[in-house]
Structure formats: C-alpha cells, structure tokens
C-alpha cells in the first residue's frame, strides 16, 4: 500500500505543477490587476512602477510563474499584489473558519442522511420513504443562494413581527462575542443558518446514496443468509447491512470533504462568513493573481489528499479491493 500511496503522490505532484501553471496563466491574462489603479485620479506613476517592479509585472508569464513558485516556497505564498500583505496568515484564518463550518455541516449531514437513508430503505415505499424522497429532490433542486436568502428573510420577518431574532443573519460572531465558552456559543449561534442551508443539499444527496446502498445490501444473499441463520433483525441490519452499505458513503464523504474545503462560496458570501469561499471571491474581484493562486493550490492539495484518503479508506473497508 505504501508503494501505491507514494506513486499516487508523485502523480499528484505532476498534476499540481501543471495545474498551477495553467491557473496562473489564465488568472494573469484574464485582466489587468492595475486597471482600477490606473483610472484613479492623480495616481502616482512612481507608485505604479514600484508595484510593477516588485511583482515583475513587465516580465512574460512563464517568468512571472517562476517568481511565484519561488515566492510560494521561500516566502509562504508571498504577498498580495498591491498592498504587499502576507497571504498565508489570511489563508490560515479563513481556512480555520471554513473548517468549523464544514465539520459541523458534514457531521450533521452524515448523521441525518444515514438515519433517513437507512430508514427509507428498510421501509421502502412507505409514507416516510415517499416523503423523504420528495424532500430530497426538493433539496437537490433548490439553489443554495435562494435558500440562504429565504432563510435570512424568514429570520428578519419573524424579528419584525415578534421582536425576537432567532439567529444572526451575517458574520461569524457578534460585535462583542466574549471569550472562552461564550465565544464558542456565539460562534455556534452565528453558524446555525449557514449550517442549516448547507445541510439541506447535503442531506438530500447523501440520503439518496445511503438509501440506494442500503437497498442493495439488504437484498443481497449474505443478508438473507444471516436472517436464515436466525439472527435478529437489529443485528442483521446494524452488523451486516449497515456496515457494508456505509462503504460507498464513506468514500463519497472523503471526496467531498476535500472539495468543500475550497469553501462554500455562495453560502459564505451570502452570510458574510470569513471563509475560503469569500476569500476566493474577494481575491477574484480584486484581480490579484497571488491570493487566487494560493487559494487554488491549497484547495488542489486538499482535493488530492482526500481523494487519496478515499481510495485508501475504500481499500481498508472493503477487503475485495487490492492495491496494485
């Protein structure tokens, strides 16, 4: 397995290098990062030249890419284009915030999706199953931005009618969040709406997978054998069916986790959560290739790592899989 992991990591390095060059090229040629600066009244030409010199903006793209690679390795992703701000501290900050959101969402989504999926499979074609199927399709079909806006509107309407605000509708914490436990309660309170919004699509998707996997397993021969041997239904379901049905879901969750680390762009933007998604949007709007590159590299590494984790986990969970 070690050989397999090393080989995968080597392949991934090549992919990363190619991807970074392509992304750098596209980001760089997509617009002039000094555009807004140039149309500012009375802008100092000396200052513009300072920026051009500092970031080698007059050099060809491949050379600029090499400067970026050097900066990324020796200077922790370097600094932003205009205000020369170190990129890494900002990136760490937003990544931590996204992780908080993501971990809570994924945990809750998995719990609910497994419960709903298993119960729907066991009670196939029951009222519960039909209801959950309907809600799943609704959840999958509803755009996240719309759901987020509606959640905000609902909270505001309740507040206007009752004077009672159920949840904060923006930002990661209150003006005075306090410290210690108070801080974390305040943070949790601020994350309720975004978590609920993200949970809708997550549960809708995962519960369908879980239901399908469970149906496949409970109709398989070994489950029938287990029942024939006289095991009680709970044991059959929990020990033989559920454990095997979870395998595809675990793989899917691992794959999704890497992708989601790139931030829930829409949700973070609507709720003004200082996370990876909002960081990316701001970097794009400012036409600054350097934070965009840092973001994309971190995201790409995470996707590669979690893809690997998914593959390894699959092998560990399913003895039929062997690494070549």
């Amino acid at each position, binding site marked *: 397995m070690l050989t397999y992991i090393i080989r995968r990591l080597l392949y991934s390095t090549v992919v990363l290098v190619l991807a970074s060059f392509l992304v750098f090229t596209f980001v760089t040629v997509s617009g002039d990062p000094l555009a807004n600066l140039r149309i500012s009244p009375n802008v100092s030409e000396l200052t513009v030249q300072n920026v051009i010199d500092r970031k080698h903006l007059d050099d060809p793209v491949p050379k600029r890419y090499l400067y970026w690679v050097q900066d990324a390795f020796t200077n922790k992703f370097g600094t932003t284009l205009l205000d020369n701000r170190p990129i890494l501290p900002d990136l760490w900050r937003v990544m931590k915030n996204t992780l908080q959101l993501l971990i809570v969402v994924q945990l809750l989504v998995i719990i609910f999706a497994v419960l709903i999926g298993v119960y729907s499979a066991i009670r196939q074609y029951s009222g519960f199953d039909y209801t959950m199927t309907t809600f799943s399709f609704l959840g999958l079909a509803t755009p996240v931005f719309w759901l987020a806006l509606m959640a905000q509107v609902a909270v505001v309407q309740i507040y206007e009618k009752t004077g009672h605000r159920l949840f904060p509708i923006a*930002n990661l914490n209150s003006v005075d969040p306090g410290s210690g436990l108070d801080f974390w309660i305040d943070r949790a309170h601020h994350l*309720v709406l975004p978590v609920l919004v993200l949970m809708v699509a997550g549960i809708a998707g995962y519960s369908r997978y879980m239901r399908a996997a469970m149906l496949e397993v409970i109709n398989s021969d070994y489950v029938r054998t287990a029942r024939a041997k006289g095991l009680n239904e709970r044991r059959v379901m929990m020990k033989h069916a559920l454990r095997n049905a979870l395998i595809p879901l675990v793989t899917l969750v691992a794959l999704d986790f890497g992708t989601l680390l790139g931030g829930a762009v829409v949700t973070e933007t609507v709720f003004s959560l200082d996370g990876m998604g909002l960081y990316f949007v701001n970097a794009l709007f400012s036409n600054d290739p350097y934070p965009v590159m840092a973001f994309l590299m971190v995201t790409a590494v995470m996707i590669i790592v979690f893809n690997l984790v998914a593959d390894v986990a699959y092998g560990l969970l399913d003895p039929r899989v062997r690494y070549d």
Partner: protein
Amino acid sequence: MSKRSLWLLAGLVLVASLIVGPGATASPAKTNAGTVVFIHDQEPPNLQGPWVGNNLYATSLVLNNIWYGCQIRNAAADFVPRLCVAKPKLVKKSPLTVSLEYKKTAVWSDGKPVVAEDLYATWKVFTNAANNVISRTGWEDIKSMTRGNSKKVTIVFNKPYADWESIASAGPYAAHVIKGKDMNQTFLTSIPVSSGPWLFDSLQKGVQITVKKNPRFKAGPQMKLDRLVFRYILDTNSRFQALKASEGQHMEPQPQLQIADFLKDSKFKVDRKIGYTYEHIDIQFGAKGHPALKQPYVRQALITGINRGQVASALYAQISPGLPKLQSLAYKPFETNYKKNFAARPFSQAKVISILKGKGCTGGPDKPSAGNDKIFSCPNVGKLSFRFHTTTGNQLRALTFEIIQRQLKSVGIELVPRFQTGGVMFGTTLPSRDWDLMLFAWVGSPSSSITLKDIYGCGGDQNDGAYCNRALTKVLEKVSVTLDAAERARLVNDAEAKYMVKDIPSIPMFARPLYTISANKVKGMGVNPTQEGSPWNISQWTTS
C-alpha cells in the same frame, strides 16, 4: 408507530434542538448602549490609508477621524476648520505660500501636541519614492515647510498649485510615532494614536473594525457614543436584511432598489443627496474609433438623440425621483459653480434626423419611430453603427444602455453592445482606444474641476478618448494653476460653454445619488458627498 420509530424520532428532535437551542435564547445585537454598528460593503485591506491597494472609501471612513484634518469637508462639501484655529491662509501667490495654525487643544491621544513637525513628516512620507502612496499630487510641489514644535506652519510651493487648500487641510501623521518606520509596513493592523474624535480599538479581520471615543480630543466636540463598529457584509441583500434585523443601525448603500423598502419603513430614516461620482458616455476621437465620431455633427446627433432626463428618471424613479440630468462635465448640480452648460444640447429626435439629413446622410428614417430599423450612413464615414462599451454586472448601466439603444435606434443610429468586466474594460480596452462609445463613471471630488486637463486636455493622463482642442487645453492648464477659486470656476464654465459643449468630448448623464439609512433609534447621521462620508459629524451621533 413502532417503539423503534419513536426512538428514532426522539433522536432527531434531540439533534435538532441542539442546533436550534442557542437561537431560542437569542437577543438582538449584543452591544453596549453607546455603540453604533455601521454596516459597510467593503473591508479595508489594512489601516495604511491612501496607499496603493487601499485607496478605498471604506478605509477613509475609518481613518478620517483618526488622522484628523486641519479642516474637513462638511455635508455641503465646504471646508470647516477642525484642528486649525481658522482656515489656512494664502499668504503669497509667488512663490505660493500658505500658512495654517493648529489649535492649542489639538493634541495626540498620547498627550503630545499636534505641531508643525507632524505635517512636515507627512509631507516626507508622501514624497518618499519608496512609499507606495496612491498619489503624490501637490505634495511633490512643496518646496519647504516649517519644522519643529511650532503650532504655526508655513508651506512654500515650488509652483502654483490650485488645490493647495487640500494639502494644507490634510490630516497629519504623528511624527513621533512614524519616526524611523518603514511606512509600507506601518499601520497595517493597528494605529496607536489619534488626533481626532475617535481612537482605533480593534480589528477582527473579515468581520469588523472597532473605533472608540478619544477622551483626549479637545479640538472639537467629543463623540457622544462610546464606540462605532464597522461591520463588513459583502452581499448586498444581506446588508439590507442585517439592518432590518438590527444587526447594525446605519449604512451607506449604493443606489439600489432595496432602498425603496426603507423609504416606506417608519423604523428607518433615509437621507439622500447627489454625489460627485457621475455617469457619462465617453466618445472616441482616436484612429481606432469609428470615423463618424470625429465629425462634430455626428456627436451633436448623438447627444441630441439621447433623452438623458428620461434615463435618469427611469433608473431612479423609485429611490431618487426627480434626479436631474447632468448638464456639466465640470460641476455637479449641488455645487455653487454648477452651470447648465449642456442645456444647449436639448433632446430632440426630429432635430437628429434633420442634422443627419442636412449633412447628406442617407438610409435612415424620415421621422422618429420606436420600431425603426433603418440606420443612417453618412458621407465618407459610413454607417452610424457604434460599439458601445460598458461594464458587466451593473444593472443600472445595462438598463441605461437599453434605453439609449432604443432612443438612438428610433432616429437611425445603432449601438452594438460590448459589455466587459471592469478589469478588462478599464485595464485593456479603455487605454487601447479601440472603442467608439464607453459608459462609465468618474469618481469626482470638490476639486475635480482643477484636474479637468487630465481628462480633456490634449495628451492628458486620463484622456483615453484622444480628444484634443488646443484652445481648451490652454484654458484648463491655466485653471490648474489658478489659485483663486472664483476665478477658476469662471474659467472652467466659460471654457465648457465655449469649447466642450461645441465639441462634445463626452456626454454627461447624471451624478449618482448617495444615501444613508439609519435606524430611528440612532440620530445625527446624513450624507456627506465627499470622502469624509457620513461620520464627518460623529460628535452629533447619538443612540437611545
């Protein structure tokens, strides 16, 4: 329902209650009584001030009341003394010499007095080539300045500089704080002193910046509030919702339709004024532009065929009814020097057709018609079909284009849309001069008329329309060195009426309205159309 199902249901309810639990005991904004939360759309990247990458209104909102000025602009955009005992004086015209005197009560929050050395150090910051300040204009024209601990400052300029009052009014840095510092790396995340009504308190990146009352501020009325919190919410709808949900009490929204809700809501008050930023259509005179645009009669037909008043009222009917069309490229309707020079180019569709036919153009309609699809072709310049550039993602500009396109099409002039992102349009297309008509906004200021030569002078730094009228350029150059404001205004207005209205280098559309929305429980806020923003009168802000 079976027992197992009941357990399952109970589990679901338990988890749900854990999520919803904290919210059930939530109370609106956990803030102190003397706190106002100012919801804003853009977060300053750092606290450096007018530095490259940080030349934002959002930054000046935070810093104006920290690096306080000798005088500041009030809501009417007039200078009023603050740290200074009186307005700076013009002592001598040649060499240009001005003087100012800081009040005895003008002190830094650490107790040291504000003195000449502070302004001197500020001058040195702005002229140091290594410092990435956004603009050195005016500062680099200074020859000498008083140093030391005197409260009186004399500034001598190398050459006449019309906007000398802005330099003299600038908020100085604290010399004793910045001494020996690399200013490119200073004040990134905090500012230790203040000469103004508030002090920097804290910065929570991505969330908020908090400033608090400066108890040592004696040069003017002190803040009644304990503190002001700038909360940053990127999403437009969320900002409005957050204000309604009492997560903030004040905001300065862009002109957006959501403002209409607040105009009807008795829990909020909306203040609105016309600002300095104005929308206009630039016309390309260069070789890559349409040859027809070099013909004065075509430009005359364009401005005559656009009902600018209808555009302004269609865009702002709900949130700013009666917004006037802009009739000057130099001044805004609320300025005392504003003259309706472009009123000489009134809207008349019949006149457009008569102008074009009179010059031998053919193929167009005989009379204006909404369903017209005949386009004029004119001798030696071809079909009157122009590329119309503007930015994507701006609903008001898209609507402006649609209205103008229909208006001009009904008189036989075609506009072909070329929408681009701001980065591409301003970074590549505008300087390339490969366009015909371009709709965008100039961010103006009270001293914009002084720098008109940069936009409309031959070879001006920002003259991307390649317009050139030597006689006008001569006048505009004279304007930039005329020290007397009244004389400057006379020169500008005469030149606009005599040359610009005739040449039509740009078509003025309207000056954008500015808004503030405040909850009724906070008082004292209103629009200030300059970079001071609504907190210019922070000492009058109160909360119940």
